[in-house]
């Protein structure tokens, strides 16, 4: 959850940063458009075109006054202008100019003016070349005539004079016409030409050619001069410069607008920068605040941590105390448990001791030794005649026989009591063992020793022998062949005695069938030694199966629920386990003890 919201806020932050950056870039590019650079270049190109245009016109005038005979300068400005215009066009058309009708108009206007001017200049060149040539040649043509006239001897002097003057006047008229082209002068030339024609008729045929040449050239001047003047005027009127000015004005206006926009965007940029600056300051303040907050929280956390540590220490100490108390309690409880266990077992064994002592006491009470006392009393009554008494008295005669019987009876009695005492000794030994076991519990050591399981079972049976006999329990033994093993004799014995005692008890209410208990020993899987005790007594209710080994569970009125619990514990302490099985109430029970099989040879 936290992760997702963190990622989302990171994404948001990135987006905001990107948005701000793009706004900044947008404003930056908007405010520093390359329009200005284009504008400068375009203005410069227009200026250059205008310059070339002036140069062109200058060259035209130079050609007009025949300062130069080279017409290349009249071509190159035009080419240069076209070249510059192409550049200008390339720059400006890249700016969406062609969208503006006004611009297109100005554009077309220039091109048309330029085309028209070019056309007129080409015509001017042609006509001016002819005109200048004729004007240049005219004096020579006139000279040719005058020279011939001077050599003419056979003509009337006056007439010759007139012809000379006429020719000269015509030359002057033509030259004047070239300077001041007017209809008067044109008329003069017309008159002069007519005179020359008339004069030619008076002159010899040799004059025909030079006069014709001169007339032709003067006609050409008369024809071409107004044409050239007109062309010059037209050229002058071609508004190339004006068109360029229009373009310049439009460029200026556009530039102003762009400047306006630029300023606007500059302002926006400034505004945006201020906003960014303010937000930065705000962020810085927030950051400082956050730092203070973090520090404060850190300190608080530190304090809380210290307090917490202290409390934890306290609690730990308390816990330790509690634990040691608990341990003590547990130890005490354990000791009590063990004591209960010991007492229980001792009680079991004491039962046997009690029975034995009862038996001995009863035997002693009804002992035949009293008969020996009576026999001795009879003998003592006849101290002097003992022989006679023994042989003659009726009672005396019976006495030896009686004594013989008594000896036999006493011997039997003695034997029985020895047996019973032996049994009692064994029980007492067991009690000693139990006490020793309790002591070994305290050390929590298991004492293993080599033992024969079958013997152990016999011991256990013997310990319960009195009770089994009393309750008429038939013991069936199903002992398999088991080698000598290493085992904890006391724990095993404890378990077996308990199980046997339980089995016996389970069958105590059984009256309708013989009470049979089956003891079995076998080896399972070569690893486990299995000892089972089966009875066909009251069985175990299913609901009790789980609780049967629990401490304090019992079904007996006088029981304390310790036997099976301690047995199970003992089994576990031997790394084995004790399990119970019953098909249900009244169907008997089977208790099975499994312990690891450690054969003596293996151990040795």
């Amino acid at each position, binding site marked *: 959850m936290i992760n997702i919201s963190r990622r989302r806020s990171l994404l948001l932050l990135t987006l905001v940063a990107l948005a701000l950056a793009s706004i900044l870039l947008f404003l930056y590019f908007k405010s520093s458009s390359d329009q200005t650079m284009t504008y400068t270049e375009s203005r410069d190109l227009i200026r250059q075109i205008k310059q070339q245009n002036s140069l062109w016109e200058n060259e035209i005038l130079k050609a007009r006054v025949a300062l130069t005979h080279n017409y290349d300068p009249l071509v190159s400005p035009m080419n240069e202008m076209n070249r510059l215009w192409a550049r200008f066009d390339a720059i400006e058309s890249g700016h969406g100019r062609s969208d503006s009708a006004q611009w297109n108009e100005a554009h077309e206007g220039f091109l048309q003016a330029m085309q028209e001017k070019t056309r007129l200049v080409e015509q001017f060149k042609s006509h001016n070349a*002819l005109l200048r040539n004729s004007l240049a040649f005219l004096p020579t043509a006139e000279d040719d005539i005058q020279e011939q006239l001077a050599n003419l001897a056979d003509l009337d002097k006056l007439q010759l004079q007139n012809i000379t003057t006429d020719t000269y006047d015509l030359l002057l008229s033509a030259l004047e016409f070239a300077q001041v082209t007017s209809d008067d002068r044109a008329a003069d030339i017309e008159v002069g030409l007519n005179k020359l024609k008339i004069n030619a008729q008076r002159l010899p045929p040799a004059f025909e050619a030079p006069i014709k040449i001169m007339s032709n050239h003067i006609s050409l001047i008369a024809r071409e001069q107004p044409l050239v003047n007109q062309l010059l005027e037209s050229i002058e009127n071609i508004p190339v410069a004006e068109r360029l000015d229009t373009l310049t004005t439009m460029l200026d206006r556009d530039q102003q607008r762009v400047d306006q926009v630029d300023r606007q965007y500059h302002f926006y940029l400034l505004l945006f920068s201020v906003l960014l600056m303010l937000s930065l300051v705000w962020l810085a303040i927030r950051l400082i605040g956050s730092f203070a907050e973090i520090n404060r929280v850190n300190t608080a956390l530190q304090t809380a941590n210290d307090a917490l540590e202290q409390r934890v220490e306290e609690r730990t100490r308390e816990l330790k105390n509690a634990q040691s108390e608990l341990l003590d309690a547990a130890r005490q409880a354990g000791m009590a448990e063990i004591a209960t266990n010991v007492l229980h077992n001792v009680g079991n064994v004491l039962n046997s001791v009690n029975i034995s002592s009862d038996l001995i006491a009863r035997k002693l009470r009804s002992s035949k030794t009293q008969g020996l006392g009576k026999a001795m009393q009879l003998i003592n009554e006849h101290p002097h005649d003992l022989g006679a008494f023994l042989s003659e008295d009726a009672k005396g005669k019976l006495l030896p026989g009686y004594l013989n019987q008594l000896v036999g009876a006493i011997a039997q009695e003695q034997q029985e009591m020895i047996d019973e005492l032996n049994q009692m000794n064994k029980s007492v030994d067991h009690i000693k063992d139990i006490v020793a076991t309790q002591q070994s519990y305290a050390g929590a050591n298991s004492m293993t020793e080599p033992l024969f399981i079958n013997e152990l079972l016999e011991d256990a049976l013997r310990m319960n022998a009195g009770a089994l006999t009393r309750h008429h329990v038939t013991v069936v033994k199903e002992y398999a062949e088991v080698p000598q093993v290493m085992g904890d004799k006391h724990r095993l014995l404890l378990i077996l005695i308990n199980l046997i005692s339980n089995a016996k008890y389970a069958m105590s209410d059984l009256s309708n069938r013989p009470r049979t208990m089956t003891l079995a020993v076998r080896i399972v899987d070569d690893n486990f030694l299995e000892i089972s005790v089966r009875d066909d007594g009251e069985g175990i209710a299913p609901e009790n199966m789980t609780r049967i080994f629990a401490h304090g569970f019992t079904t007996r009125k006088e029981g304390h629920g310790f036997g099976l619990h301690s047995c199970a514990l003992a089994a576990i302490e031997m790394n084995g386990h004790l399990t119970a099985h019953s098909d249900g109430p009244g169907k008997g029970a089977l208790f099975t003890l499994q312990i690891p099989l450690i054969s003596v040879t293996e151990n040795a």
Partner: protein
Amino acid sequence: MNLFRPAMTLLLCGLCAGASADPLDEPLKPLPAVPQQDARRVELGRRLFHEPRLSINNTLSCASCHQLDKNGADSRSLSLGFDGKPVAVNTPTVFNASLNFRQFWDGRVETLEEQSNVVITSPHEMGSDWSTVVERIANDADYRRDFAATYPDGVTKTNIQQALASFERTLLTPDSRFDQYLLGNTDILTLDEKYGYQRFKEYGCIACHQGVNIGGNMFQKFGVFGDYIADRGNPTVADQGRFNVTGDEVDRAVFKVPSLRNVAITAPYFHDGSAPTLERAVDVMFQYQLGRMPSEEDKRLIMLFLTTLTGQREDKP
């Protein structure tokens, strides 16, 4: 007279100065240097110039009529088109053509690039069309490779034109004796030739034939004094000259003034190739353009001068 005097002064100055290195200030200008160009494009242009695949039936290259080993033209009055029929006007020399202010006799295009376009697509000259030409050139692996090497967009109409024009701009004929004279080596001309130049100016030839290309920078009416075409007879559409381009009546029989560079070796003369010899051409010029009759001596001198305008071709020994 007003022109004769300064010219004479100049001439005398030139004589006195001898082989001084200072260029002369004359209405005629020396040949400029070949412009700096991409050598690969020039080389492509050279190959294309000799490329018959530019004509529809693979018979004509530019060089078929503009023979570079001769005078940059052929010696016919009218060259033959791809179909073997004569074309409308005389083939002008390709030498120094880049110095002309416009191309063709009637000046209908301004650039060499456009010139090649007109010739290639003319139904009387090469008779081809650009898709065919571009396809043929592009199908040639060598061309394709070399075009790609110098033109980013490879073989295109524009690039073919550009390459051709690049090559043609190199076709200048430097080192004519007159150019050397203009550049200050005044001893290179004989006295007669110098007189010829002086007569050339004096008679007004320079009214039209002046500048860098000694002509080629203006239009002029052919037949100022008298109608040459009528006198010649059999007028054709081509005889209308610039009228065919502008439709303007004043442009009737107006032609581009041709360059006089290499004039001595570029016979026949005029747009119709009607003057088989230089002398005839000079005569026609005097009669119809200048309206004067020169003395035999002056004509001889002028023709002597005209021979000094023959330049050198770099690839010629």
